[in-house]
C-alpha cells in the first residue's frame, strides 16, 4: 500500500479468505459496520461508488446463512439486518411515497460512515507499520542521565538588613511598661458610697442605682465592678442583703435593718 488512493480502501487490508471461512470468523468482526465494510470491500470498487443495494443483499444473505449454520448472532447484527431490509424496500419504493429522511439520504450516510471507518482502519494499519521504538528502532540502552541540581540564591537588600537590626534592637531594649492614669472608683470609695446610700432607704435598690450618675463610660465600668464587690462585702458583714431573681437578672440590694 503506497498511495493516498488506498486510503479509500479499494485494496487495503482485503482479507483474502474464502466465503466458507467468512462464516467462521464471526467473532472477528468489530460489530455490524465492520462486517459491512468488509463486504463492501469485496465489491472491489472505491467505497464512494459501491452499490448500497448490492451491499444490503450481501449482508442479508450473510445473516441468513449464518443463521442457517446456527451461528449465534449478536443482537446488533440483527438490528442492522432489519434496518438494511427496511432501507432496501424504501429504496425500491416509488419516489412520491417517500418520507423524510429519504432512503437515498440514509444510503448515502451509510456510505459515508463506511468510508470513514475504512479510512481509520487504513490509518491504523499504516500507523502500526511505522518504525516503532522497541520494535524497529531502539533507544540508548544505558544512558548516564543528566543531572539538574537546584541551588537557592537568597535575596535581601540593605533596607531589609537595617530594618531587621532595628527590629532586634527594639525587641530586646529594656521594656518600660506604663499604665496610663484612668478614671477609676476604688473599692474603698465604693464601700463608702454604697453603705451611705443604703442608709437612706429600706427598699430594694438595683445595683446600678448606686453608681454615680453622668459618669463617663470607663468610670461607670469601674464603679460597677467596685460597687459589686462592695455589695458582696457589705453582705458578708451582714449589713446588706443581695437578691437576683434570674441568671443575669438585675442585682438588687437592701439594708439589713438593725
Amino acid at each position, binding site marked *: 500500500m503506497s498511495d*493516498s488512493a488506498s*486510503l*479509500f480502501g479499494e485494496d487495503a487490508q482485503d482479507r483474502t479468505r474464502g466465503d466458507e471461512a467468512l462464516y467462521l470468523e464471526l467473532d472477528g468482526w*468489530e*460489530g*455490524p*459496520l*465492520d462486517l459491512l465494510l468488509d463486504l463492501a470491500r469485496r465489491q472491489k470498487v472505491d467505497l464512494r461508488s459501491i452499490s448500497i443495494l448490492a451491499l444490503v443483499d450481501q449482508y442479508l444473505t450473510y445473516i441468513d446463512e449464518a443463521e442457517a449454520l446456527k451461528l449465534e448472532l449478536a443482537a*446488533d447484527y440483527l438490528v442492522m439486518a432489519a434496518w438494511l431490509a427496511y432501507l432496501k424496500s424504501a429504496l425500491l419504493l416509488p419516489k412520491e411515497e417517500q418520507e423524510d429522511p429519504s432512503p437515498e*439520504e440514509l444510503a*448515502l*450516510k451509510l456510505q*459515508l*460512515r463506511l*468510508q*470513514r*471507518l475504512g*479510512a*481509520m*482502519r*487504513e*490509518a*491504523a*494499519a*499504516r*500507523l*502500526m507499520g*511505522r*518504525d*516503532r*521504538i*522497541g*520494535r*524497529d*528502532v*531502539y*533507544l*540508548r540502552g544505558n*544512558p*548516564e*542521565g*543528566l543531572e539538574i541540581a537546584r541551588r537557592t540564591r537568597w535575596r535581601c537588600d540593605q533596607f531589609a538588613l537595617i530594618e531587621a537590626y532595628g527590629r532586634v534592637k527594639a525587641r530586646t531594649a529594656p521594656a518600660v511598661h506604663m499604665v496610663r492614669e484612668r478614671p477609676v472608683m476604688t473599692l474603698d470609695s465604693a464601700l463608702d458610697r454604697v453603705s451611705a446610700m443604703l442608709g437612706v432607704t429600706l427598699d430594694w435598690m438595683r445595683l446600678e442605682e448606686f453608681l454615680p450618675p453622668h459618669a463617663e463610660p470607663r468610670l461607670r465600668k469601674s464603679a460597677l465592678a467596685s460597687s459589686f464587690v462592695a455589695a458582696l462585702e457589705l453582705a458578708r458583714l451582714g449589713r446588706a442583703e443581695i437578691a437576683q431573681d434570674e441568671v443575669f437578672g438585675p442585682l438588687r440590694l437592701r439594708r439589713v435593718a438593725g
Partner: protein
Amino acid sequence: MSADMERALEAALFAAEEPMSAEALAGFLRDAPIEEVREGLRALAAHYEVRGIRLVERGGRWHFETAPDLAHFLRRTREQVRKLSRAATEVLAIVAYHEPVSRAEIESIRGVQTSSGTLDVLMEEGWVRIAGRRESPGRPTIYATTPAFLDHFGLASRRDLPGIAELRAAGLLDPVEDAYDDLMGAGEDTDQSADRGDPTDV
C-alpha cells in the same frame, strides 16, 4: 556553529534519559542562544543521517535512536513491543486523527461500543491522555495523544500521521452529517453546521 556546540549537544543527548527540547538543551549549555542550539541540532542530525544511530525530532523534542534498517540485528535480544488488539489500534488511530475526541465520537466512527478497557490500555501505554471535557451537553471527557505517542511511532508531529493531509482534504475526518451537507451543497445552512459542534448523532 562551533564544533564545541555540536559535541556538547551530542554528549547531552546521549546521556539524557528522555527526549530533550532545544530549550532544555540550551539550559545545559550555559544558556546558549536557542538559535545556535537549533542549528547545532540540525548539523548533528545531518551528521548521523548515514550512521547506525540517528538523531530525530519528535514533537519538538530530540533523541537518538538506532537506524530502522538495523532492526533485524537488534531484535534478537530486545523485548518485542506488546501487540495491540485490533480494537485498540483502531481507537488509537481515531484518537490520533481526530483529537480531541470523545468516546461517543469514537463509537460513532467504529459503529460499535468501545469497552473502557480499550482506552485504559492506550492510556496505560502512555499514548493517550484525557484532554479535559468538551463544553457541550453532558460535558463528555475528551481524549488526545501524548508526546510519548509521537515518540513511539516516530512522528515529528501530528502532521506526520500517515495520510492525514489527504484524509482531511477528502473530508474523511469530518463528521458524516457535515460531509452529507457538503455533498448536498446545502449552501444556506453552512453556519448551522459550523455551530453544530457535537458530531456524535450519526
